[in-house]
């Protein structure tokens, strides 16, 4: 039984089908890279899995249970969490407070209960993602790259079993990207299932166990990284023409 399954997920916005009949599974301790041109439905898939949107058709299963109608906070506590492509931290709170919220409310029952402990713990998580120096600053003072790291810290604070990471490498330097990918591989060894949306394919390939390619809302390829990026369907989606 897979940790998380999307079965026949479809989502329409008016006449436009952002996602069509997508079926995917996620296993613990794996990193899945989700690739595809802009508009292929990657963020929509994340929204459907994490609960920000309801599907027009299809179901989401978590550890065998159907959770399609569950609200986001419930899914978060169950162990699914995601970062937001457009970072939306709590601007007037400090970074520690931003992360502490997830510790207090999103982590499963054994999570921290008291605010001061949560703030302490939050500082540890923030230094893991490289934001140790900014722990007491307000979130509105961060740069784009730092915001992405904050998003990651906030998601990790909720002790996810499935972590959906939406374009976290955007705005990072090459060393920064390596650090983040290193962090994610460490999470993988702890058993977390990770799904990464990224455009920086070269950075992903050494790290990913599996690649799923989306195009116009459908899965067009799935499998080992080397195979997927060379498949004709994927090349056509990105480059627009069959490549001889």
């Amino acid at each position, binding site marked *: 039984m897979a940790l998380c399954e999307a079965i026949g997920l479809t989502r329409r916005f008016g006449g436009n089908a952002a996602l069509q009949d997508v079926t995917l599974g996620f296993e613990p301790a794996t990193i899945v890279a989700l690739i595809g041109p802009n508009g292929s439905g990657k963020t929509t898939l994340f929204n459907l899995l994490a609960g920000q949107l309801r599907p027009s058709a299809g179901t989401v299963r978590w550890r065998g249970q159907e959770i399609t109608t569950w609200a986001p906070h419930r899914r*978060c506590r169950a162990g699914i969490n995601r970062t937001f492509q457009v970072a*939306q931290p709590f601007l007037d709170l400090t970074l520690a407070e931003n992360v502490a*919220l997830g510790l207090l409310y999103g982590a499963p029952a054994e999570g921290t209960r008291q605010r001061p402990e949560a703030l302490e713990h939050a500082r540890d998580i923030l230094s893991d993602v490289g934001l140790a120096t900014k722990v007491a600053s307000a979130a509105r003072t961060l740069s784009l790259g730092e915001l992405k790291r904050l998003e990651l810290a906030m998601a990790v604070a*909720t002790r996810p079993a499935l972590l959906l990471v939406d374009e976290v490498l955007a705005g990072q330097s090459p060393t920064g990207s390596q650090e983040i990918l290193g962090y994610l591989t460490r999470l993988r060894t702890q058993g977390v299932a990770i799904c990464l949306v990224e455009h920086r394919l070269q950075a992903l390939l050494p790290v990913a166990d599996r690649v799923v390619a989306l195009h116009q809302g459908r899965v067009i390829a799935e499998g080992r990284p080397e195979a997927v990026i060379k498949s004709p369907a994927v090349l056509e989606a990105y480059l627009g023409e069959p490549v001889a």
Partner: protein
Amino acid sequence: MLEAIAGGLITGTFYALLASGFALIFGVTRIFNLAHGDLVVLGAYVGEHLWRVAGWSPILAMPVAALPAMGLAVASRPLLARVGEPFVLRSIVLTFGASLLIQSGLQTTFTADFRLIVPPGWDHGISLLGVRVAGGRLSIAATALVILALLHLLLTRTFFGKSLRAVSLDREGAALAGINPVWVDRVALALGGGLAGAAGPLFASIQYVTPSAGIGPTLIAIILTIFGGLGSMSGLLLGGLLLGLAEGLAAWAGGAPWREITSLGLLLLLLRWRETPPTGRAGRLMRQGPSTGVRSPSLATFRWAGTGGMIVAVLLPVLAAPRDYLLYLGTMALVFSLLAESWSLPAQAGLISFGHAAFFGIGAYASALLSLRGHLSPWLSLIAAALLAALFGVVAAEVAGNLTGAYFSLATLAMAEILRVVALHWTGVTEGAWGLVGIPGLPRLPAGGLAHLVGTRATDYYAALLLLAAMCGTQAWIRRAPLGLALQAIRQGEARAAASGVDARRVKRIALAVSGLFAGGAGALHAHIFQWVDPASAFSLTLSVLPLIMAMFGGSRYLLGPVLGAVVLYLGNELLFQRLAPGGHLWLYGGAVILVILALPHGILGWVEARLEGRRGPV
């Protein structure tokens, strides 16, 4: 029944005219003008004056009545730049302050008499398609249709009208196309204000006018604008017809009070319905919550001042005795402090209540009824009443659902108004406008040594102090607990908070229940101190917004800010403004609100903190 339908439809066309000015101003300038109805009332007074003194028909008086309203509206344009974010919510608070000022001006100039224009022959019935309608109403409807048609032509066929629509759709885009948004603002304000004022004389021939009658037209304008959308006169007309029809049928079926309840209920439904689909920029602006947070300034000055204040508060009865009046002032200041503190709790989650009178009134009436009719001891009634108000807090959270920002505020306003109408008309239980009298007070101290020290009414005072201490203690605890963090997070990004595991609905329910508990307690105390309660004092709109004014004036970010604001404004009113003029309190509160929005974003304590930090230099 056909007459009710016809009457309703006819009134409905007038409603559309009534709403047109509001919709125009909101659409172009994004000002949510809560003083709209007061501009109508202003025009009504002008029209009534012209009719009484010179015999002018209301229709003739319209252009003249439009002028003062137009002037006021245009004169307010320079203030727009100082309103700050979130614009719509702050403009609601600002225009509410303006409304209070206008009302007090009207009260001073025209006195509080009821006025009505009764042009000869206007109630003469005319047969229209076999149904009898009042001739006067028909003229009003006809005038309204003509004006709406002209407006429609203006907006769609002239360049001028198109610039108005352009700015309301996309301000920056219109500027890039060469349209000056500032000029368009001025025109929209002039036109919108003028439409409101012009509708005044017609309004005065439909119903009695008093200085505080503005809330009616304002609510109608809000309902129709939310329903009809911003650029569309036909949308307003359709909404007006439907509203008039619904009200007419409700009044025919159930009697006059159901007219108001229907329109308020429709407003609530509309808010829920319109809130979920993202209706473009206007919808997004309406959903925005406020951006001020909480602060625990470590300034020693504040700590000392707070502690000093607490010591004075505990000893006041000793210091004030034997002057009962001083003790009474102190007690009432505590009651209002309690109300203001209770308001500030949901405000931390971005829930800006414009209907806190609902809790206050429920507490007051429940405690009154339980002790008067149920023969419970005042202490027990007070506790029970507070719990009942807390329960209503949960109900209010459910009714409001996922509403945020201005939508939520309007919903609370509607709920409080519904309760007021119920209290006014459910005479079997509440005795209607007469109110309940002879409510048992809290036990007095028996004459003797202790009473000599603190006065016989010290029980009232210490009961209030106890409740206030409990409220402040709760607030202090919340600010340190995870709940406080959750409230802040919800305010700054509810979706993100939910994704971090916060059950936003539950947190809001808790905030409103606790707020209701203490606000209801304040109401109950008030009832037992005055030993009398009536709908106007328990559920008035001013009372609803008073905690907002007091909390913001003191500085709602700070734990004791609302207490400070309440003490200053209440004492300022009782000792000073109330004596200057009968409507004096309106000047004070209106002025305080405007001052806060335009100049003191974090209230008095915010100003003090900025001064103190300035003197120390940047840390």
